[in-house]
């Protein structure tokens, strides 16, 4: 694992964060959905492949906002002192539970005076198809 970032002076425009492969298992998506109140009321969409297929999905889904969680977790792994002050995610296509996906991010702007970094974020499946993308703005301490 690469060294973590402690302050804004260590951030370089264009840097790619170390990719992160989150846990998309059915047990994880079920637990997440249950915790946000989407467990029983959504017909097993996040917890049961067969039930999700009956609804027309390719399989049980990773909840859209769980992808937002993956993205912010990745930022915190890169810099444990980063405060995520804004994150925007666009759900382009479903992310299916029990299928691997990779989270990546690249630094797109660095404002050293304000201590603000912007990143572009992507969730891709094993076929390298973008399923979710987004942007984040994080605050980092001065050097």
């Amino acid at each position, binding site marked *: 694992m690469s060294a973590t970032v402690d302050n804004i002076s260590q951030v370089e425009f264009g840097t790619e964060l170390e990719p992160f492969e989150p846990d998309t298992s059915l047990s994880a998506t079920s637990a997440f959905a249950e*915790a946000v*109140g989407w467990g029983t009321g959504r017909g097993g969409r996040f917890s049961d492949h067969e039930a999700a297929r009956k609804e027309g999905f390719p399989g049980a889904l990773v909840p*859209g906002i769980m992808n937002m*969680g993956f993205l912010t977790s990745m930022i*915190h792994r890169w810099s444990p002192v980063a405060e*995520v*002050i*804004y994150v*925007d995610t666009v759900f382009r296509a479903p992310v299916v539970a029990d299928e691997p996906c990779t989270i990546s991010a690249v630094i797109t702007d660095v404002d050293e005076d304000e201590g603000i970094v912007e990143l572009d974020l992507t969730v891709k499946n094993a076929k390298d198809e973008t399923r979710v993308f987004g942007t984040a703005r994080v605050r980092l301490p001065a050097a």
Partner: protein
Amino acid sequence: MQVDIEDLKSKYLNLEFDRKDFVLDPEKVVMVAKMSGETLPQFCDPDHPDFQAPPAFIASLASGRHLPVDFPKIGGVPMDGGKAVTVLKPVRPGTPLTGRTHLHDIYDKSGRSGRMIFLVSRMEIFDDSGEHVATSDSRQVIREKSQ
């Protein structure tokens, strides 16, 4: 006849249509953080002095209704087009919060399969002292019915 986006905007934008109270359950906040791969203690340990909800949990807070009560039917079943969260202050589990929701934006995009209408509902979240602590935007996408 196509839906008139400017007419919808003039009638519905920036008018609060829902208000809902929340108290976030610390155990559920921890579960969401851990299942997202979060490792920082301020999101995973309820005893941490800076314990707070991660953005994904804030995005899960749902208003009592998705649209104003008299909003016209403009197409098929809305799809979840995405979420955005702005964190102004830490959102503390176990304390009273109030979400006030309004329509923040309405816009359209046209493609080969027709016109898609985007409705952005914005929930502004306030703590029990009335301080605005976070904002959660929810984009609904509706495919316009062909005439």
